[in-house]
């Protein structure tokens, strides 16, 4: 970590009707870090995340990616710049095969998605090689021709992570990647998140409410509570923070960790 900030949000606000879901929240994500956003239910984690990824435009505040103001940019353009994201409920193409799910983003990154003619044999081989690499990364080569909608939930998550890598991002945003997973699947996703950082050298920002996961994975933790920023710091500091304990963690949980 060299202090290079890849994503920076300042004073972001977002309300829905009378509810201030996100109230002047800021974040600085350093390049190459594994950064977690935590908070109890309703803390505004996902809403904040959605303003970062362009799912919503914030009411006020700014979002900068690699120094460029992207606050009001459409979501797809942020992806072109090098962000990517997953969703709490995996956002996939359920009736397509795993291969086809990875094909769309791979073609997009190679700039051939808009072509009305068939790709050349060479291009196709290049695309297939890249998809094979992605399948290998999430260990789903054997499932390549299976329909994604039929796969187990954990495998759909992995497909979605591979899809988000197909665009060759610099920053990956993961929205509650462990939600609804069995123990074994959680371990698998955790090791994939590790690999995103260690093997692929990507910056990862993830929302999670599983404290054990956060404290063991993250380099830096941002804690939200009721739409506000409660604390930010390295995991050990967060675990010791009184306000965080009161708001969210409970003494017991921290001691177990």
């Amino acid at each position, binding site marked *: 970590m060299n202090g290079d900030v890849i994503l920076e949000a300042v004073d972001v606000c977002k309300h829905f009707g009378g509810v201030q879901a996100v109230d002047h929240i800021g974040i600085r994500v350093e390049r190459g870090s594994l950064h977690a956003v935590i908070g109890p239910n309703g803390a505004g984690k996902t809403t904040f995340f959605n303003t970062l990824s362009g799912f919503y435009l914030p009411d006020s505040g700014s979002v900068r990616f690699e120094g460029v103001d992207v606050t009001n940019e459409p979501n797809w353009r942020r*992806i072109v710049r090098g962000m990517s994201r997953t969703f709490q409920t995996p956002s996939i193409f359920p009736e397509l095969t795993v291969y086809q799910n990875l094909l*769309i983003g791979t073609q997009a990154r190679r700039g051939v*998605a*808009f072509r009305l003619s068939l790709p050349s044999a060479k291009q196709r081989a290049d695309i297939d090689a890249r998809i094979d690499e992605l399948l290998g990364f999430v260990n789903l080569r054997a499932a390549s021709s299976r329909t994604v909608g039929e796969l187990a939930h954990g495998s759909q998550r992995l497909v979605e992570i591979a899809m988000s890598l197909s665009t060759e991002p610099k920053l990956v945003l993961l929205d509650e990647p462990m939600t609804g997973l069995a123990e074994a699947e959680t371990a698998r996703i955790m090791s994939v998140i590790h690999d995103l950082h260690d093997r692929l050298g990507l910056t990862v920002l993830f929302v999670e409410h599983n404290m054990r996961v956060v404290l063991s994975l993250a380099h830096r933790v941002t804690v939200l509570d009721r739409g506000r920023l409660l604390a930010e710091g390295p995991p050990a500091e967060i675990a010791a923070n009184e306000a965080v304990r009161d708001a969210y963690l409970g003494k017991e949980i921290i001691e177990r960790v």
Partner: protein
Amino acid sequence: MRSGRRTALWGGVAVLVVLAAGPAIGTLLHLDTSILSEVLLTAIGAMGVNLLLGYTGLPIFGNAAFFGLGAYGAALSVKDFNAGFLLALLIGLAAGLAGGLIVAPFLLRRRNIYFGLLSIAFGQVFYFIAYRFSDLTGGEDGMAFPRPPLKVGPLHSPVDETLMYYVVYALFVAAVVGFWLIVRSPFGQTLVAIKQNELRVRYLGLNADRFIFVGIVVAAAYAGVAGALYGLLLRFAFPLLMDWHESGNFILMTLLGGAGTIFGPLIGAIIFVIGKDIISTITPAWEIVLGAFFIACVLGFPRGILGTIADTIARRSAPDADSLDAGPPAPTDQGRVAVTPETGA
């Protein structure tokens, strides 16, 4: 894994070869050659609907406007500018395409029922223009025009019904080959992905609106060619061609034959056009009979005739890895694993 694709390819080639003998088959079945021309040109128009409805998931209910623009384009170019056959066709195509370019920016951001309703509204605008601007279009009475001779190089021939059929046939083959290329191209694969999950397409860095824009324009061009051929077949263009009722017929044919399959619109057009021709000689209430038949088809073939057949075949063989148009592959023997339902916050 590839055998399913090869079967489909050879099946398609066989269909095109059989259609080449259209007039002879028509004589055998006591069908006018002009009815067969109508089948093929209607199928071309329905293919445009299929690209949007079957592949992209957009209910285009205003396609008849582009069809009518094609017919008027051909009619006006012949009547006012003495255009030849091919030029009239080209102008008809250009008219349909121009209609698409005008309407597409307004439809782009609408989805589902709103897309359908707005496309009806635009279609009706064109209908009323044709209806009201009678100086240009002949208004309610429509406009009759002669079918110009075909001039290609040294060939210079009046277009009788048989030659007309072969012109329609040639364009149908071109339309099928073009369609086949489009749905297998990265562009077509992305349209299918948009149908499944547009949000994810955007989060793969693609501006889905651009794809939909081109999809609408391509559909309009298909409708324009079809309409120009229809005008040249009838030697007539009239406002009802643009009516939303006509758009509904294109949708019906597409769903009947199998939305999302290449030859579905052809099957729908065969049943619709020939069915109408036969049943209307038996009873004036042909729409009731055809309607009842459609209901039976929808119940018996939920994914359209070709779509349901393709599904059944797919269920009996292994899932095909890279065919996007054969519908969802069947479940494999490894069995389904329950997907945990979740609510997004």
